[in-house]
Structure formats: structure tokens, C-alpha cells
């Protein structure tokens, strides 16, 4: 048989006919289509039993109840607990994806030491023991202060820091300057009884005058605020927002007073001016104030016209506001830090806080109530960040949790000695941790047992427990164990209870008072504490997922207040230059504290501004020949950076709102770029960075 072309063709022809009479082509087609539907480029779904676990969110101090749907015991979805007495079953956008944080791309897997001297600032794995020994020797030979920076005070871990620092001769316990209870703590300083724990009784109030507090943008306990404002039609609650930009809260407020930036102090004095001049100040309140004349002097220093000029608000509107405050059955005046721009200065805080005293809202229903009376004030070395001397800290521990508020590196840097050691306990290589010498990772959220005390702004006492939903990796260390190791290493003894023991003690305390009731997460039932058989029973319930909350405790106490308000020195000059105001969203001011899925808000939609964006009024833009989406150069005395321009008619002309937020994309997860705009801000002596003179120009 010859191999000819024709023969080969015949063979091929026969094969071709046969081919289509076999299942081969059809089966391959079918299988390949199944393959394209299920290829390995798309991850397989987890297989396994589905279960429900309960815990509490610890991303911020609100500590909302959480129901976790788990597959194979691993949480795959979080949702709030309906009818939860504290948070009303709401979780914020960050909390809804909080279970991703254990797998965050910025997670530090091992203890690391930074080699800052090497050119690329490389990291090197280090064992806990070696790190502890090195840190202990630093502490022993230090001449300066040893400080712990605690962003969420009031936890059991905070107690450990106290104990540790108490044993040192030069320990400093520092807290974040941005505090949601700024007005309450200012009042606390003015009050003669400094053992009172204050809270806002929003549930019964008729009027809230808020100086820039982002009340409806996840301030305090987000679910609580949403519930209160959700029922405003029925309850008659009114909100007056005094803020220089139209924030989400201003949008939802009943009245928005768009004041000029950085004039809140004068706005508060202007209200006091009306209250005093028109005899609207409560007589009873007057008698409680020891230095009323001082306030009167300050408030009457300017004329109505001057106040209008300074604040940019017509005085008649200020008068209306003051009248409403005085006439309202109950009212609260409060301030709140801007998550991006920090707190107000002390004078402003005092002026705002004192309005509450003038209208007599302290200790009344719907005002500022006494949540609890502390037993005694231990002589802790608790210090506000601003009270710390510059260049004094030699060894600084930075606690693992975020306060949820921006933390400019400059703020920390100015307190450090030139030769310093920074130890970050954060489980993430976040923007601050990138400056550390050691990263000794703590457990990530939902990896350890955390107790959840009442929120600082709450009107009732409450308590619940965040039980771990994940197994803790072996390469992390709880702060309590770390500090035990360090104290051993420096030859001290640290006697502190574990969180579990502390929770048991707390449960016993609750059980013994028989106060309040326990809300069970699994079935939504509420059971009075008095019906529990034992403290163990109560404790068990808390571990299973439950929240204890007390009844409102509004005993009225005759307080005396020392306001200590200094009169304003002079009228602030209006300048023609632009002012830069950083703007952020609570908790989402750093890349590490939010799940990558938040890219849906920051990157894949325009709901929240990504880092590196500025928003300006079109009028301002025209003045500087900028257009939407242009790249502009933003310059301040501190430095300059490139930013993307967005136009927004709701922004005050002359104001640049610069977003402080995560730079949510892969490469930027490893760069600490978000802080760039914070590094441009001038940090005032009061520890705030609300206002900076700035320039923009087109590139």
C-alpha cells in the first residue's frame, strides 16, 4: 500500500465521519463548558456545616452586638442583633465587614523589627522573647518617659497599662485627643463632683445643638443615634447643626448653620450672649456657677454685628437658636471631633459645654445625665496627649486598637525624644505602625476575648462580651501577656486579672446589684438580673451572647461649676487665602481598620472620598482655574502633595475639604499614603489640626 496524498485524505475522511459518530466531540464540548463555569480562577465555595455565633463588634468603642453566620465555624457574614437595647440592631458599613479584618492584606503575620537604618527600611522577623529583652533594656536605661498610647481607654487592657505605668517612675498614660465625649469630659472638669460619669440622654431630648459632631455619620453608638433620629417625627426632636461644611449630619439636620471655619468658639459665645442679654439663663443654673462674671464678660465682649461678621451667620438666626435652646423642654449642646480633623481647642470646648449649664440641662431628663457614680478616682497617671511635654517620650507603646479617629504622625513625633523606641502592638502594618521599631502583633478583632463596657456617650450603664470568633494564630501576643513578660524582664511584678476573670468579677458585681436586665442575642428575650440564679449563670449568658443594660439612673445632684472661660483676645482676621480642613469617616481613617470590601464605597463608587481627593466649591475652582477631576498641587507651610479635584456646590467657598481615608488598592495597602494630607496640616498647641492655610494650583 502506497502512502499517497489521496490515501491519507481517505483515512482522514473516514476518521472524520467516525469522529462525529462517537460521543467524543459532544462530551468534550460539554465538559469544557462545565470547566469554563467552574474553573480554578474562581475560588470554590467553602463546604461545611453552617452555624450561628454571637459576639460584639470591637472596631470602635460602640461595641455593637453581632450575629455571625459561620461556615465550618468561620464567620462569613455579620449582621446586627434585631431589637438590641443598646445599638438597636444596626451595624455600620465597616462593622458589617469586620470579619474580613483577620485576613486583611496589611496583617502582620509575625513579630517584626524594623531596620530603619537600612536604606529600604526592611523588616526582620524577631522572636517575642528577643524583642521583649531588647525593649526591657531600653526601658531600663531610658532617661525620658515611658508612655503607652491607648486609643480606647476604659477597657481591662487599659487597667494593665495603668498598673504597668504606675510601677515606673516616669510613666505616661496617653489617650487620643479626639474624644466623642469631648463636651462631657469638659463638663467633668468644670464640675465639683468629679466622680460623676455623665451621659447624653438623647432618648428624651427635644433639641440637640451640635457643634460639628457627626451625629448621624456613625458617631457614638451608630444604631442608637439612628433609632433616635428615626423617630424624630413622633418624638419632635430637632437638630441644629453648626458646622462649616454640609456634612451628612448637616444634610439631615433641621437647621444647618453654615458658619465660617474655626469660629465655633465665637458661635458658642454668641449664643451665650443672647442667653445672658435676654435673661434666658436659668436662675438655678446661675447660682451653680462660681465664675459667671467671667463668662458674661467673655460673651458680651463683642456686639451682635461683630458676631455676625465673625461667624458668617446672621445674628437673628443665632438669637433664634438661643431662644429655642432656652425654651425647649430639654436640650443638649454638644461638640464632636471631626474624624479627620481632630477635636476643637479647649476654649471652644469650654464655651460649648458651658451652654449646657446656662440652659440647665445637666442632670435633667433629656439633658446630660449622670450615668453612674464612680467609687473613687484612683490616682492614675492618665494624661491627655496635649498635656505631655514635647520631646519627652523615649519609649512609646502604641495600643493595638484604633480610636476610629485620625492620628497624624506629626502629633506623635513632636512628643518623642530624638532617640526613641516605638513599639506597635497593632496586628496590622498600618500608617502609624510603619513608624515603629518593633511590631509585636496583638490578636486581630474577633480573635480574642474583649469586654465591652458602656459607651462614653451612653446614658445607661451596659456590659457585654466580645467572644472570639476565630482561633488566635500562635504568632500574636495579647497585650497583657506582653506586659507581663516586659515587667518580668525589668524585674517588676504585674498582678492583673485576665479578661476572663475580669468579666467574671463584673458579672458578680452586676448580679449583686440586681439592677437592669439581660438581653439575649440568640432569642431576643430580655430577662431581669434578679431572675438569674447565680452570677455564673449570668456570666455564662454573657459569653453565649447577651447584653446587660441598666435602667437609666438619673439622680439629680446639686453641682457647682467653675467655667473658667477666658475672654477672646481679638477678632480673628478674615484672610483671603484658602483653608484646608481634613475630613474623614469614623474608623475608616486608616487602611488597616477596614475590610478591602469597603472599596465598594471608596473606590468603586463615589459614596466616600478616597485618599488624595479634595473637594472644593465650583466658585473656588474657577478662581484657581481648576476643573473637576484635575490634578492639583496642594501646598501648606508643612509641605505639598498632588490631589485630585472634585467639585461640590455644598462646600463653603474658600474651603478645601481634603479626604482622610484609606487608599484602598493593592499597592497602596503597603504604602502609608493616606497620612499625606494629615502631614500637610498644622498641628496647633491644643493638639488639633482642624484648620490650615493652604494654596492650590493647577498642574
Amino acid at each position, binding site marked *: 500500500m502506497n502512502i499517497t496524498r489521496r490515501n491519507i485524505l481517505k483515512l482522514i475522511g473516514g476518521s472524520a465521519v467516525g469522529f462525529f459518530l462517537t460521543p467524543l466531540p459532544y462530551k468534550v464540548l460539554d465538559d469544557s463548558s462545565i470547566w469554563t463555569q467552574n474553573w480554578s480562577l474562581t475560588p470554590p*465555595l467553602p463546604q461545611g456545616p453552617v452555624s450561628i455565633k454571637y459576639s460584639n463588634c470591637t472596631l470602635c468603642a460602640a461595641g455593637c452586638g453581632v450575629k455571625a453566620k459561620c461556615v465550618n465555624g468561620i464567620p462569613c457574614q455579620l449582621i446586627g442583633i434585631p431589637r438590641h437595647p443598646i445599638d438597636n440592631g444596626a451595624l455600620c458599613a465597616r462593622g458589617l465587614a469586620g470579619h474580613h479584618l483577620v*485576613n486583611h*492584606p496589611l496583617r502582620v503575620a509575625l513579630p517584626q523589627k524594623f531596620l530603619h537604618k537600612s536604606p529600604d527600611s526592611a523588616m526582620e522577623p524577631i522572636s517575642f522573647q528577643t524583642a521583649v529583652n531588647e525593649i526591657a533594656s531600653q526601658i531600663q536605661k531610658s532617661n525620658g518617659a515611658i508612655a503607652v498610647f491607648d486609643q480606647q481607654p476604659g477597657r481591662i487592657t487599659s487597667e494593665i497599662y495603668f498598673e504597668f505605668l504606675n510601677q515606673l517612675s516616669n510613666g505616661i498614660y496617653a489617650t487620643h485627643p479626639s474624644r466623642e465625649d469631648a463636651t462631657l469630659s469638659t463638663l467633668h472638669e468644670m464640675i465639683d463632683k468629679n466622680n460623676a460619669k455623665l451621659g447624653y440622654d438623647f432618648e428624651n431630648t427635644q433639641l440637640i445643638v451640635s457643634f460639628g459632631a457627626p451625629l448621624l455619620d*456613625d458617631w457614638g453608638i451608630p444604631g442608637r443615634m439612628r433609632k433616635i433620629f428615626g423617630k424624630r417625627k413622633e418624638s419632635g426632636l430637632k437638630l441644629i447643626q453648626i458646622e462649616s461644611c454640609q456634612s451628612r449630619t448637616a444634610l439631615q439636620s433641621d437647621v444647618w448653620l453654615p458658619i465660617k471655619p474655626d469660629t465655633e468658639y465665637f458661635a458658642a459665645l454668641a449664643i451665650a450672649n443672647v442667653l445672658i442679654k435676654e435673661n434666658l439663663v436659668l436662675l438655678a443654673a446661675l447660682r451653680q456657677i462660681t465664675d459667671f462674671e467671667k463668662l458674661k464678660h467673655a460673651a458680651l465682649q463683642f456686639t451682635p454685628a461683630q458676631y455676625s461678621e465673625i461667624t458668617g451667620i446672621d445674628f437673628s438666626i443665632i438669637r433664634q437658636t438661643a431662644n429655642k435652646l432656652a425654651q425647649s423642654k430639654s436640650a443638649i449642646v454638644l461638640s464632636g471631633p471631626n474624624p479627620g480633623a481632630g477635636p476643637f481647642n479647649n476654649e471652644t470646648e469650654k464655651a460649648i459645654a458651658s451652654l449646657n449649664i446656662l440652659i440647665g440641662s445637666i442632670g435633667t431628663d433629656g439633658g446630660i445625665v449622670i450615668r453612674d457614680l464612680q467609687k473613687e478616682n484612683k490616682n492614675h497617671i492618665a494624661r491627655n496627649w496635649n498635656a505631655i511635654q514635647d520631646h519627652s517620650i523615649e519609649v512609646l507603646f502604641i495600643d493595638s486598637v484604633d480610636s476610629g479617629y485620625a492620628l497624624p504622625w506629626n502629633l506623635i513625633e513632636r512628643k518623642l525624644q530624638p532617640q526613641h523606641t516605638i513599639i506597635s502592638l497593632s496586628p496590622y502594618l498600618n500608617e502609624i505602625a510603619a513608624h515603629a521599631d518593633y511590631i509585636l502583633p496583638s490578636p486581630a478583632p474577633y480573635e480574642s476575648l474583649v469586654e465591652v463596657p458602656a459607651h462614653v456617650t451612653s446614658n445607661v450603664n451596659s456590659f457585654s462580651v466580645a467572644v472570639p470568633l476565630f482561633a488566635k494564630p500562635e504568632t500574636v501576643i495579647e497585650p497583657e501577656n506582653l506586659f507581663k513578660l516586659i515587667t518580668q524582664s525589668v524585674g517588676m511584678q504585674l498582678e492583673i486579672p485576665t479578661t476572663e476573670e475580669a468579666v467574671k468579677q463584673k458579672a458578680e458585681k452586676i448580679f449583686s446589684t440586681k439592677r437592669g436586665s439581660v438581653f439575649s442575642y440568640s432569642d431576643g428575650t430580655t430577662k431581669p438580673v434578679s431572675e438569674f440564679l447565680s452570677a455564673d449563670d449570668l456570666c455564662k449568658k454573657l459569653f453565649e451572647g447577651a447584653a446587660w443594660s441598666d435602667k437609666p439612673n438619673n439622680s439629680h445632684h446639686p453641682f457647682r461649676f467653675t467655667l473658667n472661660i477666658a475672654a477672646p483676645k481679638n477678632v480673628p482676621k478674615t484672610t483671603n487665602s484658602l483653608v484646608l480642613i481634613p475630613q474623614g469617616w469614623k474608623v475608616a481613617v486608616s487602611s488597616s481598620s477596614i475590610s478591602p470590601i469597603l*472599596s*465598594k*464605597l471608596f473606590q468603586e463608587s463615589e459614596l466616600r472620598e478616597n485618599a488624595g481627593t479634595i473637594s472644593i466649591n465650583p466658585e473656588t475652582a474657577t478662581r484657581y482655574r481648576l476643573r473637576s477631576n484635575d490634578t492639583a498641587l496642594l501646598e501648606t507651610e508643612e509641605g505639598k502633595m498632588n490631589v485630585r479635584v472634585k467639585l461640590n456646590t455644598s462646600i463653603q467657598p474658600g474651603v478645601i475639604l481634603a479626604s482622610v481615608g484609606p487608599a484602598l488598592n493593592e499597592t497602596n495597602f503597603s504604602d502609608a499614603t493616606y497620612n499625606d494630607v494629615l502631614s500637610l496640616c498644622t498641628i496647633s498647641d491644643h493638639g488639633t489640626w482642624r484648620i490650615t492655610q493652604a494654596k492650590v494650583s493647577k498642574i
Partner: protein
Amino acid sequence: MHNLRSWNVENNTSKGLENLIMETISEKKSQYGMMIDLDRCNGCGACAVACAVENNVPPAYQQTNTRTGITWMRVFEIPNDEQFPQSDSVFVPMFCQQCENETPCVTVCPQNAVEIDPLTGIVGQIPQRCLGCRYCMAACPYHARYFNWRDPKWTDGMKLQLNPDVAPRMRGVVEKCNFCHGRLHTARQKAAANGSEKIDPNDYVPACVESCPNKAIIFGDLEDGSSEISQAIKSKNTFRFLSRLGTEPKVYFNSGRAWVREMAEQALTRTKKEEIYG
């Protein structure tokens, strides 16, 4: 009134599937719909995140932007075009509006990968059938359909945290909101375990509705005259986007603010961000 859908099963007569008798479903149709109170929405983004978590929507790549991202639930902030301080804005969550009539995406799909579910009125997208021609995206006036320009990507740990009730989509296919259909499966399954064909309405609540801290979203069966939603849509402040196209979307919006309702009725004139000539 509508008959309840039920299977009358003749027991023990079956030998093999041939003789198995399942009863024909009577013509009971649900029409799931939604209403969003825009006055309650303050743009917190919880719905968008809850949606992405529920439906295994992957996080963005570095280069992903607002035009290539996948946001089944996307919240827009729409200003009223007044100058500071008269400015006002409204947050509008936009997602598949589940058009009932001449559903634009259903008729165009060349291979039946999109269809209206006959029992629920949900416009279903079957990514396994989709070839990625994107004709449906061109057809959708709400731009509520999203294409997988890339392979979905999660960190290894996050892969174990996927919701087991919703299959992730591969690259090259279109996806969109389906009223959390995975949750309907779960609800039906639960009902079936108790021998019932009828689901408890409380068991079937989409993730955005469940997560909304402001309780701004109402969800339910429009066919059921007693449901909360069929009462709510009767309000005079209720409107739908692009209802003039006649596609009968099943997602309603509500606002007491006149300018918001007027904005929703406007056609193409709101082009402030663009430069218009003539």
C-alpha cells in the same frame, strides 16, 4: 385571593421517577418589590457592603474604578444644584430595578441567561449561561448590570469566608442584584424542612434591607395586598426612576422633598457637571 402554591403528593404509589406525581403549581405568583425612603437614607453605605458580603462580590483591584467596579448596590449622592449654603443633596441607592414589563435585559440576551423568574418576578441573571456579550448592559437604562472585567480575587483567608449560599462569578460574565436570591433558597429550604411550601416573609429579607441602620428600605410581595410594601407604595410621594419608559420597575422610591421627586422626573436636563452648548 391567591391560592397558596402547594404540592399534593400521592404517597407511596411511585416506583421510580416516572410515576412520581407532583402537582401542577397553581398560578400563584409573588411579585417581590422594594421601596426606599430617600429621606431616611443618609448614605452610610451599609447596604452596599452587606450586599457585597452576602453575594460574594470581590473587592476591587488596584486599577478598578467607579466605571469598572462591581457594586450591585451603588449609592449615588445627587445634589440639588443650589449654591452653598442653599445646597441640599439626596442619596439614591441604585440597583437592578427588576423591570416587570418588556424587561430590557431579558429580551436582548441571545442565550436566555437572563429571565424573569415566573414565581417571584425576580429578574434572574444566570452567570453560568452568560457568554459576556454585554448586550444586556447596553440595554439597561439604570446601568445596574456589572461585567467581570477581571477574575474575582480574595485573599486566601477571605476565600474561606465566602457565603456558601451564593456562587462567585467567573471573569467575563455579567452580574447584578437578584434580591438576594440565595436567601430565598434558604427560606424555602427552611420552610420545606417543616413540610411547608410557603415561606415565612421574615425569613426572606435581602441583605441591604436587613442591614440598613435607618430602616429606609422596605421589601415584600407586591401581590400580597396586606404586605407593608403594597401599602407603602400607595403614598403620594412615591415614584420610580424612568417609569416613563414603561418597563414597570418593581423598585420604588419615596421622598417628601419636592425637588427630589422633580429630579427623578427630569430627562437629561441635569447636566450641570457637563458643559452644555447652545
